[in-house]
């Protein structure tokens, strides 16, 4: 399988006054298209930092990041927006829905920034996505009227609306109970089966078990990198 994401000698430093914090210390990683990767590691090991760089929200201090064959490190701000808009879908721990919009409008948002003209067709797609994640009854609700699990489903639908090749999820189940977490993980697994590449950060082993590959970071470096070949299919309790 061709690599969809490749980082070479990736460094990230934070400068705080005279103190320089070295967070990522020469990472070399390659993720295949269609894979489902769990990023693990202790708090402060640099997982979110790496995810932000992979998500084109932040730039590395040194090193290269190839998204397919494009070197993202060289891109302008507008080009990075373009990449996020075209290739990436985000799922956040805190859901990050816009409170003033309804479920459907939240799902529509990435299309707006793709320059799509909103028509009945685009709306049909958003409604279909909302139905797919089980929110058929909640199309016109606002985020405040939804539970955490429901909000995260909206976020998943929103991450899918632009048909991204790579889905980045930083602790998508971090705020959810285990039952709801499993529902979300089943959805991500389904998406992965449908061909989406997923990179997910998690602290929990049983969540990581849903992934095909587990990469552990420690202190800004790769500590271990294992394939979950003997995947156990966890049944709902």
């Amino acid at each position: 399988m061709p690599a969809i994401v490749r980082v070479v000698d990736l460094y990230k430093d934070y400068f705080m006054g005279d103190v320089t914090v070295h967070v990522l210390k020469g990472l070399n990683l390659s993720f295949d298209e269609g894979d489902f990767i769990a990023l693990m590691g202790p708090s402060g090991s640099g997982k979110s930092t790496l995810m932000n760089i992979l998500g084109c929200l932040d730039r590395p201090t040194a090193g290269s990041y190839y998204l397919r064959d494009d070197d993202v490190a060289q891109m302008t701000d507008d080009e990075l927006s373009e990449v996020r808009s075209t290739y990436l879908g985000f799922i956040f721990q805190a859901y990050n829905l816009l409170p003033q919009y309804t479920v459907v409008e939240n799902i529509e948002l990435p299309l707006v920034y793709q320059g799509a003209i909103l028509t009945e067709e685009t709306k049909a797609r958003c409604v279909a996505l909302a139905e797919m994640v089980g929110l058929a009854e909640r199309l016109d609700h606002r985020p405040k009227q939804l539970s955490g699990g429901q909000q995260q489903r909206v976020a998943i639908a929103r991450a899918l609306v632009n048909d991204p090749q790579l889905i980045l999820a930083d602790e998508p189940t971090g705020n959810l109970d285990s039952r709801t977490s499993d529902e979300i993980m089943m959805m991500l697994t389904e998406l992965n089966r449908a061909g989406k590449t997923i990179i997910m950060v998690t602290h929990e082993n049983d969540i990581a078990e849903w992934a095909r590959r587990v990469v552990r970071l420690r202190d800004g470096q790769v500590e271990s990198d294992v394939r979950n070949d003997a995947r156990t299919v966890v049944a709902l309790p």
Partner: protein
Amino acid sequence: MSINIRDVPPAPVKATPGFLDLSRLNRSVLLAVRSLWLHKLRASLSVLGIVIGTSAVISLMAFGKGSMADALNDIKKQGTNIIVRSVKPSDDSSTGSRSFVVSYGLTFRDLERFETFGDTIGRTVPMRVFPSEVRYLERMQNARLVATTNDYAAVNHLQVARGRFITSEDNRNLTNNCVLGATLADRLFPTEDPIGQSVLVRGHRFRIVGVMDNRMPTGGTGGSSAAEDYNLDIYIPFSTCRARIGETVIVRASGSRSGEKVAISQVVLTVNADFETREGRERVKAVGESIKNILKEEHYKDDWAVTVPLDRLEEAERQQQRFTSLLVLIASISLIVGGIGIMNIMLATVTERTREIGIRRALGAKRRDIITQFLVEAVVQTTVGGLAGVIIGLGIVFGIPPLWNLITGSMLPALLSYWSILLSVGVSIVVGVMFGLYPAWQAARLDPIEALRHD
């Protein structure tokens, strides 16, 4: 639970954005309204300055224009007239030999000299004016006697209600015909038809040939022309007055009697010129100066005065211009203050909505999308504020004058100027852009990851 991404309709093809995409603009405006709606009170308070500014511009402009219009119209009616009057000298130099009859004023020689202007002067209207009793049978009324020529009515914009005015034949033939002002006619002839009746004026009998229309008294619009009430006038031919009554007139005033010998009380000269043009105005002024020079030569006493109403017109126009620029200044200040109010709130909003900005950036928004969003919000606010100001301003312009009339009984003229509406709404929009730009830029400048981490 089953989830199948393959059942979902495909993502739409990216549309190439047109230069001016109305549907997208429409949507931006809608979204801006939605965001503003979240904080209705705050949004309306922040545009209060704009609302007050625009309503003030519209209403002040209307009242200013309304009060000026009357004055300007009065002056404009005088057009290219030059008014030359006899003035009783304040103190006769011959104090010792104070005669009972004071002799002063314009003479027929002056009138002859005015004729040297030729075609420059269109109309020359001499007048002899003094108070006089007018009797009909046992009824008596104090009136203002005006001995003049046929052009008087035209020069003073007087309309005849019935019958006719004094004609040139009346003057040529020294007829004893007269015309009454509306009030005078009503008082002397409450029931009868005055036309054809005779009245007694200073021992002479005059036959009534016409009655004038009621006319609003002119407001004494500053300067030297006093307020005139034409309704108590009696008009007789100028030449008849000279022949029958003579130049010397005895006037009774509060018990004492005084006499004055005046040939002509006043002459109105109409200059052939267009007062709307610069050349026309210059010409009228030049004639006015020449007349003054003639009178200086002819009179050794200071017993005359020349008034050029056009001077007052220019003064009034300058005053109106000053007033307008003052209003524009006040309006600009209040709109700028309003703009600062908007900017202040917008900056707070940007800080408050940092996370929202981060989310939008993560979902693919470019810097210019964020700029557009906040700019549209600012412009929507100021536009709505400007329109609200227009509505309030119109309410004031049309609502206050009747109320004012009801309470004080006096008039409060207001004249709406349509360009003030366009101007104030236009300026509101510009203020929105000007003062929205900086906060919008602040919002767009944020680093996506910093914005996203903000809470």
